[in-house]
C-alpha cells in the first residue's frame, strides 16, 4: 500500500487484512463531511498549487520586459537592466516566494508596459465580471431550481420531457452562441435592450440591470441546465423516500413537504453542481464580455496576452482562482447549513443496538 515496488506475495498476504480493516474506517471518513479545518487546508493547498502553476507560466515564458517594451531595439544592457528592475535576475524560487508573498498582501506587481499596478487594473475590471457572474449565478439558481422542481413534480410527464430536451440541446451549444442569439432577438430585432456596454452598479442599479441582464442570462443557461437536471434527478429520488410518505402522513401540506423536507435533502448535489459551475461561469464571462463589449477581466487578460505582459497575465489568473476558491468555500458552507446532520460523525454502531435484524 505504501511502497511503489510490486509486493512479493507474502507482503501482499500481510497487507490484505490490513487493507480490509482500514476500509470501513476510510469509508466512514469519506461519508462524514469534511470539517471546516480540512476544507481550509485543502483550499490553501489548492491555492498554493494554483499559484505555482500561474507563476510557472511566467517562468516558462521567454518573454522579458525589455523585449516586450522595447521590441527589436532592446540591447543586452537594456534587458539586463529591466530584468533587474523587475527582479527577474533572482533565482526562480526567490522570485516565486516574493511574488506570492506580495500577492497575499494585495500587491500583484506592476505592468511591464504601463507601470500601472496590476492590482489596480484588476480591481477596476473585476467588479464587472463579478456583478455579471453573480447575476448569472442568481439566475441559474432561480431558473435551474425552478425548472428542476417543476420537472421533478411532473416526473415522466410532458413538462419533464420538455425540460430534459431543452437541457440536452443547451449542453450542445457553445454558451456564447446563446449570447449572440439573445442579442439578435432582444437588441437587434426587438430593440428592447442595449447590444452591449456597461454601467457600474453603484452608478445606477437600473441601468446596470439593463446592460447586465442579457450577458448574465446567456451565461446562466449552461449552469441552469446542469442544475435543473441534477435537481430533478435528486428530487425524483428523494420524493420516493419513505420520509416523504411519513411527512405527508403527518398532515403536512404539499408545499411544506417539498420545501421543508424534500428539497433540503435533494438540494445538496444540485448545490455541488453550482459550485462546479462557478469557474465555468467565470470563464464564460470572458467570452460574454467580448460579445457584449464589457470592460472586464477579458479585455484585460486578452490585451496583456497580446503584449506578453506577464505580471498582468499572472495577476488576473491568480485573482480569478481566488474568486473561485472563495465561491467554493461559500458553496461548502451552504451545503453544511443545508445538512447539519452530516456535520456530525455517525455514531458508529449506535443504530441497531437494540434494533435487531432489519
Amino acid at each position, binding site marked *: 500500500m505504501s511502497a511503489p515496488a510490486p509486493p512479493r506475495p507474502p507482503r501482499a498476504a500481510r497487507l490484505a487484512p490490513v487493507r480490509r480493516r482500514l476500509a470501513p474506517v476510510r469509508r466512514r471518513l469519506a461519508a462524514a463531511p469534511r470539517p471546516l479545518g480540512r476544507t481550509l487546508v485543502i483550499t490553501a493547498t489548492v491555492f498554493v498549487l494554483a499559484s505555482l502553476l500561474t507563476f510557472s507560466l511566467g517562468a516558462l515564458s521567454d518573454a522579458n520586459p525589455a523585449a516586450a517594451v522595447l521590441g527589436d531595439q532592446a540591447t543586452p544592457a537594456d534587458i539586463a537592466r529591466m530584468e533587474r528592475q523587475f527582479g527577474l535576475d533572482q533565482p526562480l524560487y526567490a522570485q516565486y516566494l516574493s511574488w506570492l508573498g506580495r500577492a497575499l498582501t494585495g500587491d500583484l506587481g506592476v505592468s511591464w508596459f504601463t507601470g500601472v499596478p496590476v492590482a489596480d487594473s484588476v480591481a477596476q475590471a473585476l467588479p464587472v465580471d463579478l456583478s455579471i457572474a453573480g447575476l448569472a449565478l442568481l439566475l441559474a439558481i432561480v431558473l435551474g431550481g425552478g425548472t428542476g422542481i417543476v420537472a421533478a413534480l411532473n416526473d415522466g410527464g410532458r413538462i419533464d420531457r420538455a425540460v430534459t430536451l431543452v437541457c440536452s440541446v443547451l449542453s450542445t451549444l457553445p454558451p456564447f452562441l446563446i449570447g449572440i442569439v439573445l442579442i439578435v432577438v432582444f437588441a437587434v430585432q426587438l430593440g428592447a435592450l442595449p447590444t452591449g456596454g456597461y454601467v457600474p452598479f453603484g452608478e445606477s442599479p437600473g441601468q446596470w440591470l439593463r446592460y447586465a441582464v442579457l450577458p448574465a442570462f446567456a451565461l446562466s443557461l449552461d449552469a441552469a441546465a446542469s442544475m435543473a437536471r441534477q435537481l430533478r434527478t435528486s428530487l425524483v429520488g428523494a420524493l420516493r423516500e419513505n420520509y416523504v410518505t411519513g411527512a*405527508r402522513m*403527518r398532515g*403536512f401540506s404539499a408545499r411544506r413537504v417539498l420545501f421543508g423536507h424534500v428539497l433540503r435533502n435533494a438540494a445538496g448535489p444540485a448545490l455541488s453542481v453550482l459550485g462546479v459551475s462557478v469557474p465555468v461561469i467565470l470563464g464564460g464571462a470572458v467570452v460574454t464580455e467580448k460579445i457584449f463589449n464589457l470592460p472586464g477581466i477579458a479585455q484585460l487578460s486578452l490585451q496583456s496576452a497580446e503584449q506578453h505582459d506577464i505580471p498582468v497575465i499572472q495577476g488576473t489568473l491568480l485573482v480569478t482562482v481566488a474568486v473561485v476558491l472563495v465561491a467554493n468555500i461559500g458553496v461548502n458552507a451552504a451545503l453544511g447549513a443545508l*445538512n447539519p446532520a452530516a456535520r456530525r460523525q455517525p455514531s458508529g454502531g*449506535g443504530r441497531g443496538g*437494540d*434494533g435487531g435484524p432489519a
Partner: protein
Amino acid sequence: MSRPDDPVLTVDGLDVTVPGGAHAVRGVSFTLGRGESVGLVGESGSGKSLTCRSVLGVLPTGCAVSGGRITLGAGATDSAAELTSFTRKQWDAVRGRRVGAVFQDPASYLNPSLTVGRQLVEQLRVGRGLGRAEAHARSVELFTAVGLHRPEEVFHQYPHELSGGMLQRVLIAIAVSCAPELLIADEATTALDVVIQAEILELLQRLRAEQGLALLLVTHDLAVVAESCDRVIVMYAGEIVEDGPTAEVLAAPAHPYTEALLRVASIGEWGRRTLDIIPGRPPRTGAELPGCRFADRCAHTVARCREAPVAPYPLDSGHRARCLRPAGLLGASPGPVTAPAAAPVPRGATA
C-alpha cells in the same frame, strides 16, 4: 365482543387495484370502535398493507381505491369523514391530527437531516398550532411519555444517531402528538428484537388506555395479536377470511388458513418466514378465481369450494369465517384440522 356502537373507523367493501388493474384488495369491511385494538393479520401480499394505506390515503403509485367506503368517525356525526373522496387538503386536516401511523423501518420514515426533536415540534406546530417554546416543552413531555430516556438529549439528535427501538418510540411520539382517534401500526414491531418488540407493544397498549386511541395493528405475526388485540382480522389473497374476538379466533380457528398461521406462530420462531410451512403459494395478486381463494393450499378442499365464491359465514358472537366447513355446509364436522397434506400447487395456479 359485540360490534362497537361508537366506530372510529368503518371500512365498507373496500376494493383496491394495483397497476395493471388487478384487484389486490377485494370487498374488505371492518369496523374499529373507540379505544379498540384490532389486529390485521396476513402474509405479505395478502392486502393488509394496501388496506391500511388506503385508510391513510398513501397508496403506492398506480394503486387506487376502486370501490367501497372508508369512514372516519361515527356515520352520522359532523366529524364523520368519507376518506375515499378526499382531496389533498382534506387529507391534510385528517392525517396527523385524527389518524396517526407508525411503520416498519422507522428510520426511513424520519427526515435524515433534521433532528428528531425538530420533526416532532413541526408536527405539534402544524397539527396543534403550538408556539415554538410550547412545542418544545410538549415534545420533551411526549418523548418522556413514550419511554425515551434523557429526552432533552434525544431531542437534539438526528435519526441516524438513534437505535431502531428509539426511533420507533420517536415515531410513536410524533404519531400520537396531536391526540388522534386512530393509530395505525403497520408492521411496527416486525424489525425489532423480541424484548424491544414487547416494550413497544406495551407502550401502544398504555397509550391506548390513556388516550382512548383505537389501534389498528397490522402484522403477520399472530403472537403479537394474541398479546395485544381485542379482535383479529385475518386476510388472505386480498380478502378477509376470518375475523372475530382474538380469544375465540385463536382458541378455535374456523378457517384453515388461520389455523395454519396459528400453527406457524406457535412454533415459536417469529423471525422465520411464516409461510414456508403452509404448502403452496398464494394465488397471483388479483387473480380471478371462481371459488375459495385458499382452495389450492387447503387440506380440506372439495369440489364445491372451487365452484362459487364463499361468503363470510357468521359463527358465534361476531366471529365470522369465509369457509364452508365450519358453516356446516359440507356436511363434515368442523373438527380440528390435521396437517395439510395437499400437494404443492404450481405457482400462480388460477382457475
